[in-house]
């Protein structure tokens, strides 16, 4: 990707997402934003701030409080010429719309042999670490990665968030776009003013290294970085998946073949997590290149505790450091 101009602005992820929405709505009149409190309130995290004023209430829609309604009507809108970008207020409430997503959005193309498709995006903040209420902190991306037909995108930083959201909106198939709420206002970085895309399904090699491959995505990138600082003696290749479905196996396999070691970090529960799928693929394609068992540092197979104990649940730099050190012993 090359950029025509180099106009950059420092912004956080919330601002980058807002800009992406604004630009796509400007470029394509069929793009609609709908969800609970996305209009007058600008979204509870202010991701859709200012859109109502700019595009009016036919394109920025405060819906009734009904996730199945939001997602189900988005399916119809997308079957009939529009590109809905639906917001689910927290991923923990997306299950009320799961029926529509898994029964219909993911399979409309197949069921109609391509006559219909659902070029829609379902945005939802996910993840812990913000001292939130019950049901507001979980990380269940696996349930969207599992049914065939979705793409599942999870950005980790402002720059990626903008490029990935634009790609998601332009994608011809339904995209589940999970936003790490802990990162919304955590960091600022240079983000181009102009539109750009980052292809879905392409991981980012954040840092090259030769001893061990460290794979993560979403908010956990920001837990991996401090862990790496504590391991200056180890050459770590850090991969940010950016899209958990389709997984960029090629980048992962190439890296693991080179390093022979791998640690995977996610905050989602361990069982059937994205790490499990990655380990299977590494097993299939790079088994004989491994020097050490692949390690995973994940959330546990319990409900994420409320705020007094959530840090104990979430992966912490110390756990990542230990996992890397264990693989280095081989």
């Amino acid at each position, binding site marked *: 990707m090359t950029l025509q101009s180099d106009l950059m602005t420092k912004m956080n992820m919330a601002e980058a997402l807002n800009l992406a929405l604004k630009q796509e709505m400007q470029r394509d009149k069929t793009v609609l934003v709908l969800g609970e409190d996305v209009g007058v309130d600008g979204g509870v995290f202010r991701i859709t701030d200012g859109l109502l004023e700019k595009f009016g209430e036919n394109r920025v829609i405060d819906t009734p409080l009904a996730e199945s309604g939001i997602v189900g009507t988005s399916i119809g809108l997308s079957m009939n010429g529009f590109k809905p970008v639906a917001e689910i207020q927290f991923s923990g409430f997306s299950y009320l719309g799961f029926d529509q997503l898994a029964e219909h959005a993911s399979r409309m193309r197949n069921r109609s042999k391509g006559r219909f498709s659902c070029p829609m995006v379902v945005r939802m903040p996910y993840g812990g670490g913000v001292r939130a209420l*019950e049901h507001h902190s979980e990380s269940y991306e696996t349930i969207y990665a599992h049914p065939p037909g979705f793409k599942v995108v999870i950005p980790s930083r402002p720059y990626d968030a903008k490029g990935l959201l634009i790609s998601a909106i332009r994608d011809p198939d339904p995209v589940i776009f999970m936003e790490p709420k802990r990162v919304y206002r955590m960091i600022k970085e240079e983000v181009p003013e102009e539109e750009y895309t980052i292809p879905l399904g392409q991981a980012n090699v954040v840092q090259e290294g030769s001893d061990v491959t460290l794979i993560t995505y979403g908010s956990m990138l920001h837990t991996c970085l401090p862990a790496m600082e504590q391991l200056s003696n180890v050459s770590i290749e850090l991969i940010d998946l950016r899209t958990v479905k389709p997984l960029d196996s090629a980048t992962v396999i190439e890296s693991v073949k080179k390093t022979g070691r791998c640690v995977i970090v996610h905050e989602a529960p361990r069982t059937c997590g994205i790490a499990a799928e990655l380990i299977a693929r590494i097993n299939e394609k790079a088994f004989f290149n491994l020097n050490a068992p692949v390690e995973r540092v994940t959330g546990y197979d319990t409900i994420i505790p409320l705020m007094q*104990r959530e840090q104990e649940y979430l992966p912490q730099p110390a756990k990542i450091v230990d996992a890397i050190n264990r693989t280095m012993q081989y």
Partner: protein
Amino acid sequence: MTLATDFDPMKGKMLQILDKTGKVINKKLEPKLSKQDLLKIYKLMALARRADDKRLKMQRTGRMGTFAESKGQEAAQVPVVMQLTKKDWLVPSFRELPAQITFGLPIENDYLYYMGNEKGMQQIPKDLNMAPISVPVGTQTLHAVGIAWAEKLKKTKNVTVCYFGDGGTSEGDFHEAMNFAGVFKTPVVFICQNNQYAISVPREKQTASKTIAQKAIGYGMEGIQVDGNDPLAMYVAGKYAIEKARKGGGSTLIEAYTYRLANHTTADDATKYRTEKEVKEWEKKDPILRWTTYLKAKKAITDKFIKETDEWVEQEVARATKAAEETPKISIDDIFDYTYETTPQYLEEQKQEVKKYYPE
């Protein structure tokens, strides 16, 4: 003729006994409450208000997390729930501190929950049939129907009171609950606290129907719209619906027309979507104000009682705060051991991993 037909929501009727100044405008319906009950309503509303204020103070000083304020909605809860027995059920959403207190849940349980300590809802007293606070909007309405259905199958006369908001009536689960309740004639009292907003979304944008009460009709159920800031009207409507349910008459939908005199939660800024003028108008309809005026006019309350109640409320809130703040965090075992009745081996291993990092 029943109370619900007298106040047919399709004819634009709303049940009101006290007007907003606290004057009786429907003498015929004024219930003959004992002095003790009149004062009980006062005490519980005052306690709930202060307990809510205290939460806000704690939240603002970092001693509590985000929570949903109940200020202004006391009358929609206290006068109904006080009519329940210990065998009845309360199925709340998340804005029911007054209902919880009335039903008998210690205030510290609510505090703990919003302080991020699971014990608050895990340790609901065993003799209290209260479902835990339910955050996913509208979903608990189905549980209420199931619970009430179980009571019916067990041939008891116990009723279930279920609370939810105006926004909650948009969820499919609400409609399925109403439909099941109609079909199986379950003893549920559905109470929609129509506080005019679901976060920023005003009631008119939530549903095109004129009232929420009238939604009951489509499910073969009675619905009644009630001034939710009028404790007497809520008492009477609650009594009607509870007695009907006890007698096997099935469910009723009560729409308590009210207002939250606060932000949606402590993470919200209501000035973004409500005018100051509107809030000021509703402040004049404050249920506690109205109730005090009524009791004074009736000479049922003395300044001395008000002062003593004030002191009692202060002590009770301080006691609950202390109890909550002195309660230790849940243990690491607690994080794992309530996933299943017996903790499987793989979870046991994960637990040991956490303990290695957080020795107790």
